[in-house]
């Protein structure tokens, strides 16, 4: 019995570890692909060299992030079978086709045009190259669409019947794809990816502005990034609130855990700002709370009754300490993003966007905030739907593959070692690329001093050559 439990927990740890590492890269590359498409469109429209240089600057970073996303993503598609085989057997008829559509509509599109996007500028010309960039950007979005539909179906399942083999058999595909939590999760996740990218781009711009506030590339990227943060941060907070209300309707226990509501509150629930949840005792110790504010936020009525976890069987409780804190980390970072956006608007109005070192330092510190917030958000939603894989219907404990604990322990250890070696090296290379200031005549991937062969024999298309001469003079 003890062995079973530890094999299960090891499998959960392995999935959590590999999926968290994986998601860092798409969270960045979804936004970055769109940013590259915007930069290339601006370059094609204005012929302003600064956009092309920025495009090439971020393209090198994108290539690294995308490669790491691909290799860590393949692991995920096989881990459903290796470690969660019972889940795969039962939910495969629904989750499988959604992922197959992701592969057929998104992965091939991204992978097929990535080569042209990275290395093909001189072979296909700027217009077709822009089509390739657009295809990659659209591909990242389509990918998010399908995988979030699959995840959302696990959170709010509908549109199925149970067949004789005990499988979830699809009955209504539209109901499955557009399940109740999907639209909210899609908007919230994609906005999160855009914000994550904007914060990274803003931090890189800020870093170079702190060193040289006249650098034209740094100015453009900082300007664009702060514009996006100022617009997207408030929308994201609104979208997150809507998502929360949707969760309250369909997964109330998750919201109880987020709020730290072990007890029911018949006449208005308090908003617990901070506290120490004690899962054993079923209470939040040392809490700082605003009376009735939780009911006001969730029900728009300070005296509305709110049920607590005391209405849920104890074996169906999610881990409140984890969800309570991950939710607060996410919301806290969201508020800081809102503050950064507001600060940048103030600087913009006062004509200090490129000249206020305090703003630049703030933006620099906020560089990794998107990644932390995105992961904290996923921890909230994934731990909050425990102890189920298919919410309310299939328990996590009944989803795992019949593996021995030593086998899973060995693979988990191997994943941890390999991921730390490979992805810390990759992150190091990305940071190295970011530490170089963007400059005129920025090398792309097919040219540059450290890869002579890629340049061999390939002369830049006349238009590009002309443009770079124009820039150099």
């Amino acid at each position: 019995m003890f062995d079973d439990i530890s094999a299960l927990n090891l499998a959960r740890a392995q999935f959590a570890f590999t999926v968290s590492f994986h998601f860092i890269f798409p969270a960045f590359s979804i936004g970055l692909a769109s940013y590259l498409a915007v930069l290339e469109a601006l370059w094609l429209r204005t012929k302003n060299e600064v956009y092309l240089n920025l495009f090439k600057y971020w393209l090198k970073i994108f290539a690294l992030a995308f490669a790491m996303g691909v290799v860590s993503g393949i692991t995920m598609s096989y881990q459903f079978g290796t470690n969660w085989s019972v889940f795969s057997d039962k939910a495969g008829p629904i989750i499988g086709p959604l992922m197959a559509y992701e592969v057929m509509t998104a992965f091939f599109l991204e992978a097929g045009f990535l080569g042209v996007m990275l290395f093909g500028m001189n072979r296909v010309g700027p217009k077709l190259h822009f089509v390739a960039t657009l295809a990659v950007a659209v591909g990242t979005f389509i990918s998010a669409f399908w995988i979030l539909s699959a995840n959302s179906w696990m959170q709010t399942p509908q549109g199925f019947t149970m067949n004789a083999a005990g499988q979830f058999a699809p009955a209504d595909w539209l109901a499955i794809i557009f399940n109740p939590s999907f639209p909210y999760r899609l908007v919230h996740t994609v906005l999160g990816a855009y914000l994550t990218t904007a914060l990274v781009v803003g931090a890189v711009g800020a870093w170079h502005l702190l060193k040289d506030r006249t650098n034209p590339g740094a100015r453009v990227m900082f300007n664009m990034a702060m514009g996006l943060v100022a617009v997207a941060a408030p929308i994201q907070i609104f979208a997150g609130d809507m998502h929360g209300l949707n969760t309250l309707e369909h997964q109330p226990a998750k919201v109880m855990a987020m709020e730290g509501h072990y007890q029911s509150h018949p006449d208005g629930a308090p908003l617990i700002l901070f506290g120490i949840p004690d899962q054993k005792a079923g209470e939040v110790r040392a809490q700082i709370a605003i009376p009735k504010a939780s009911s006001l936020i969730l029900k728009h009525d300070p005296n509305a009754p709110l049920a607590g976890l005391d209405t849920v069987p104890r074996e169906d409780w999610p881990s409140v300490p984890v969800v309570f804190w991950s939710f607060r980390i996410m919301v806290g970072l969201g508020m800081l993003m809102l503050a950064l956006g507001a600060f940048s608007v103030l600087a913009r109005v006062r004509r200090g966007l490129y000249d206020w070192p305090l703003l630049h330092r703030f933006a620099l510190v906020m560089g990794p905030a998107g990644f932390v917030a995105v992961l904290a958000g996923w921890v909230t939603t994934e731990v909050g739907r425990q102890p189920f894989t298919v919410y309310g219907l299939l328990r996590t404990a009944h989803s795992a593959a019949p593996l021995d604990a030593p086998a899973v322990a060995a693979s988990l250890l191997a994943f941890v070692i390999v991921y730390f070696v490979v992805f810390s090296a990759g992150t190091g290379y990305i940071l190295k690329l970011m530490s170089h200031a963007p400059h005129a005549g920025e090398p792309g991937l097919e040219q540059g001093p450290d890869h002579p062969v890629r340049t061999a024999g390939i002369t830049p298309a006349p238009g590009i050559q002309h443009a770079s001469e124009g820039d150099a003079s």
Partner: protein
Amino acid sequence: MSLALDLPTIWACIIAFAVFAYVVMDGFDLGIGILFPTFKPGRERDSAMNSVAPVWDGNETWLVLGGGGLMAAFPLAYAIILPALYAPIIIMLLALIFRGVAFEFRWRDPDHRAFWDVAFTGGSIIGTLAQGITLGALLQGVAVDGRQYGGGWWDWLTPFSLLTGVSLVVGYAFLGATWLVMKTEGDMQAHVRRLAGWLGAGTVGLIGVVSAVTPFLKGAYYENWFAWPNVLLTAQVPLLVLIGTVLFFRSLRRGHERWPFLLALGLFGLSFIGLGISMFPYVVPGAVTIWQAAAPDSSLIFMLVGAVVLVPIILAYTGYAYWVFRGKVGQEGYH
């Protein structure tokens, strides 16, 4: 053995196609990784790497379609096979991580290029070995208990699975060498042409050994191959392998550049057809047929609509991507 075109049969064909597309396309990528140490550091290694840099990601995507498609169309088979082959599959995934990032990392870090070159080769060899072992372990049969895998954690490791593992390493190296015959010139081409000859002989020899052993594994393989009148059809496969082998060595000797690669693909195709003859209609040999493992019709129809529309489009733009980067690597004149 009925060949009626029902949904599970159609899906078995689609997944077989995806796996085959993976084997030949990532096969030559991985083959280049396997042969990498035989190339001189600098220009030779760079051109070998560059000849696949724009397409490897698309090639590897077929592996995701093969795995994802298996989960979607035959969830029971996916749920039995993957835990049964836990160790080789995890090792393959880790190896492919090293191989994949090496494409980018070696350019970003000239000081540690030697390290990432070792990662590229090591990832390619170990990944291929694990794929070959996976195939062999599946062919020799896995223990099934109800709707789950019922065997032990080292069942996959046998002399036969090691044989298929080594065979695939030689076979992928063969594909890689013939690909480079097509993509390179001069000294390097002469070098890979010599390699292609040796590896071609090795591949055909190992195809022979694996084919000779397979019918005597437990399962219906002997029946599938030698029952009358099927044998009239199945006998064409070794015959065609023989013809393909003769044509291959002729084209290699005559200095053709494209034919060796195309004929190598042909030999892989024939081996794959042979594999299909061995396994059909089982997806877990001797235990679960494609009809027993199939997802409900509502899953198969929904995906089939997508596959019929999307797979031709995928093949079209994949073809376009190859066409953009056609010609000798690092050479002008193919615009």
